[in-house]
Structure formats: C-alpha cells, structure tokens
C-alpha cells in the first residue's frame, strides 16, 4: 500500500532495518540502523515487529505527502515533527490521514532520527534485509538515499490500535560529551603508551563522520616501537577503533568492510547508539572495561531491548 510521496527528501534519508547478517564473508557490511535503541523504540511505538524497516533521518528530515491513513512515530534525535504545520510529540505514536503533509525538520540535538510507520516500510528484501547500503547500491529504496518524487509503500496498514508514548525515564539523553566504554583489542599489543593516551584523552568528532566511521581529532596515538605500520587487511566489526597512519582514531561503523590498520579497542555495543547521535564538534572519551564487564554491559543492554519490545 502506498503510504508516502516524498516532497523533499531531507539531507540523507535511507530505509534501514536491524541489519544484513551473514554476508560479511562476501564483503557485504551489516548496514542497518545506526542507533539501534531508537530504531527499535520507533517500531515498538507503532506496533511493528522488531526487524521492520524504518526511515533513518540524518540531520534534516523529509517532507512527505501522506497517501494512506497510518500510524507513525519518530524517535532518536531531538527533531521537530509536524503534520500540516501542527507539531506532534516525538517518542509517541500518532495518526496521519491521507492528504496530510508530514514534515520532519532539522535536529536540535543529536544527528539521527527514526520514522516508523505501522506495518513497516516495504522495499525488496535483499540478502535477508531491507537496509540500504548506498556505497554498494543495494537494499532499501533502489540502493540509494530517498529523493524527491519517490513513493514509499508500507507492508500493511496494520499498526497498534491505541496510541502510546515511550516512558520518559527510558529516553536516551543527547549530551555533547560522551564516554564510550571499550575493551582493548583486537590489536592492543601494537601499542604501549598509546593505550594510556587513548584512554586518558579527550577527542572531538571531526566532519568526517558517517555510517562507515567517525574520524576523531585530538592527540595522535602512537604505535609501539618495532611493530609494522599496517596490518594485513581484515574485516572489521562495528565499534572497533582503528588507528591509521596519522594516529587519529576512527570508530568503524556498520558500513565498513575491511581495514589494514591496527585496532586499539572496541566500543561496547550499547554505546554505539551514543556514537550515532554524536555530531562534529562533540567530545568523546574512552573508558577501559574488561571482558567480564563488557559482557555484563552487553547482557544488560539486551535485557533492556527485550523489555521495551514487550512494553505495550
């Protein structure tokens, strides 16, 4: 069923779901929503299953004509949402009617917002996922970001029958300074004093920050004496922090496939949601955790996700 016609696409709006798993061995990155918590919350608010496709909005959102009555929710960045010029609350499901104009403006805090529609955005499932991987031109809406004139379908008109609001205490804050908990490795043995510098310095998000990775500015992190300047290329996982030749860390994210530099540490999965909302100029610190703690943090995060799935 046709649900939206794009009047203005916004800066970079793509269709994303929970990610494309099982194809990294063929050079296909996972993709999927960068802020998984806000993504899941948006789906829960409209009554979707937890892998439904949504729109990931970056900095500025789309203006869309509504083609069928539907239930909608917007989460993630703090961003104004309007229906025919009347404001709608974020983190709350609301109805739109055929003929309405739904606009998502510019983020006041944070970077990425998630717009879910009851039934989920319908695009072909490519290798098990609806997520867009723009560099590979696959998935999502014709493998690219949305453009003016695109018409989006929803899987069905089903959504929840009553409107709900996300509990205030569970909404993430969007601070300008974040601390990311990280386990040293996989190549922490390539560093000595560099490890201390990494965990004791403040970094700034540079303008080179996208779904492939976030390049940070700050002190240059040095390799120890006698190790090779690069490693044999290997695939990367989201959250690994690579130290390239210039010593400035890059947090690798969901669209990175392979890299040839040592990775000093890897950010715990829940803290990647903070990275997704960090914008150029925001400050980042890293806090060292051990294996037991990183697995405890991960388990707590997964229980939180299970909790919000069953919340309404």
């Amino acid at each position, binding site marked *: 069923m046709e649900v939206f016609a794009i009047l203005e696409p916004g800066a970079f709006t793509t269709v994303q779901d929970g990610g494309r*798993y*099982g*194809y*990294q*061995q*063929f*050079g*296909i990155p996972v993709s999927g929503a960068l802020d998984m918590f806000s993504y899941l919350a948006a789906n829960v608010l409209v009554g979707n299953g937890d892998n439904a496709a949504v729109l990931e909005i970056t900095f500025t959102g789309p203006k869309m004509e509504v083609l069928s009555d539907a239930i909608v929710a917007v989460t993630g960045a703090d961003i104004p949402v309007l229906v025919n010029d009347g404001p709608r609350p974020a983190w709350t499901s609301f109805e739109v009617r055929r003929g309405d104009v739904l606009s998502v403006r510019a983020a006041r805090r944070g970077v990425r917002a998630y717009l879910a529609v009851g039934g989920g955005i319908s695009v*072909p499932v*490519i*290798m098990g996922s609806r997520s867009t991987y723009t*560099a*590979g*031109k*696959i*998935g999502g809406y014709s493998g690219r970001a949305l453009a003016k004139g695109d018409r989006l379908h929803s899987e069905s008109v089903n959504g929840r029958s009553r409107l709900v609001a996300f509990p205030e205490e569970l909404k993430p804050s969007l601070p300008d300074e974040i601390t990311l908990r*990280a*386990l040293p*490795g*996989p*190549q922490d043995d390539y560093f000595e004093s560099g490890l201390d510098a990494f965990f004791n310095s403040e970094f700034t998000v540079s303008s080179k920050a996208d779904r492939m990775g976030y390049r940070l500015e700050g002190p240059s992190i040095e390799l120890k004496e006698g190790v090779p300047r690069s490693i*044999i*290329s*290997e*695939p990367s*996982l989201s*959250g*690994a922090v690579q130290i390239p030749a210039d010593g400035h860390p890059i947090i690798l994210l969901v669209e990175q*496939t*392979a890299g040839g530099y040592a*990775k000093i540490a*890897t*950010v*715990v*999965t829940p803290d990647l949601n903070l990275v997704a909302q960090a914008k150029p100029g925001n400050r980042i610190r890293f806090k060292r955790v051990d*294996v037991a703690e*990183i*697995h405890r*943090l*991960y*388990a707590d995060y*997964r229980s939180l996700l299970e909790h919000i799935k069953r919340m309404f």
Partner: protein
Amino acid sequence: MEGLFPKPIIRLIGDRGVLVEYGNTISQEINRKVRTVAVALNLEMPEGIVEVIPTYRSLLIIYDPLIISLKHVEKELESIEDRLDGLDIPLPRTVEIPVLYGGEYGPDIEFVAHTHNLTVDDVVRIHSGAIYQIYMIGFTPGFPFLGGLPEELHTPRVETPRALVPAGSVGIANNQTGMYPIDSPGGWRLIGRTPLKLFDPVKEDPFLYSAGDMIRFVPISADEYNRILSERNA
C-alpha cells in the same frame, strides 16, 4: 615469524567478536588452514556462533555472548582443531572466469607488457595460465583478493585511481590480481573484463565464489564476450 603459528593467537573484538590468527604472513599454507577451519565450523556450526569470516591469515568469528560464552567459543575452536583430520573437508572449487583481454576493456595491458618486456599475448598467456587462491573477499561486495600472480606480471597500481572502474574489470596491483564485481573507483591496472555478473544481489546465491575457492581466467574472443553478455541479459 613465517608460516603457521604452532598455536593460533586469539584476539578479542569487543563483546561479540573473536579473531583467530593462524600466521603473520600472506601465504597459501596459512590461508588453506583458515579455509579448512572455516569449512569445518560451517559443517557443524556450534550454537551461538553467528558468522565465520575467513581473512588472509585469520578467522573472524561473530558470536552471541548470551547463547555461547567466550570460554566455550575458545573450547569449540580447540575441539574442531582436534577433529580436523576426521572431518571430510571438501576440496576448494575452481571457478572459471571468461575474460576478454586487452583493447578497450583492458586499457593497461600494454603498460603491463611494456613494463616487463613482454608482448600482450605473453601477458594473456601468463595471467590465464595460473590458478589463483581467493585469500579474502572484501573492499566491495564480492571483490576477491587473489594470491598466486606470477612474478613476471607484478605491476604497481596506476598513479591516480580511476573514478569509475566498470563492473567485470580484471586488474593487477603489485603482487595481486582481482576483479571488480560492481562499478567502483579503483587503482588497479586493468587488463581485461569478464562478461559474467560477479555479484547479483537479487539471486538466491548472489556470488559465484567463496573465500578459499580457486579462480582460473579463461581468455575469450570479442564474439564470445558478446554472446555471454547477451545470454546474461536475456
């Protein structure tokens, strides 16, 4: 250190990744070991292991720590090692890739020939006479990093990478050869093009090969190239 490590090095990647390193160099022996363990794990994938990704000299294992503990992942790795001899590991496949060498599809073939005092025919003969091992797939969807390029063809990359290398292009970069499954920027010396679709995302099986398989390039004529291309598009 050259060759296989006596015991693999285990490196941790955050809360759900393990990198198992079998050696420090790019070699057929180490990569064969990587493939053997990858195939063995895929034959009897322990519950909780989500994906096994072969690389040049290591295996990247993604696991779900809520289903399998890190300690058990390590135990599974040791146990598969002990059982390798008893497992029936299929031999790598050899996948033939037809290539139209030279001309507009291989604009750098004369440079390669000239660099090594060879004729273009020599380059075609040598390149298609070798069998290449797929060490890893990455960079772009389905891009194979191939080992085994004869030394007589080792040629540096172009000075300024091309903004657009068409899908199907076959190229050389130093001691490596490979092919571009999708249109992308690239700096390899282009010597030919295959009419095959190397990556077809809407197919049940989108790729023609996996890491660890072998590749052989088969020279074809322009007529044959066009015939395969028109069959593909039919």
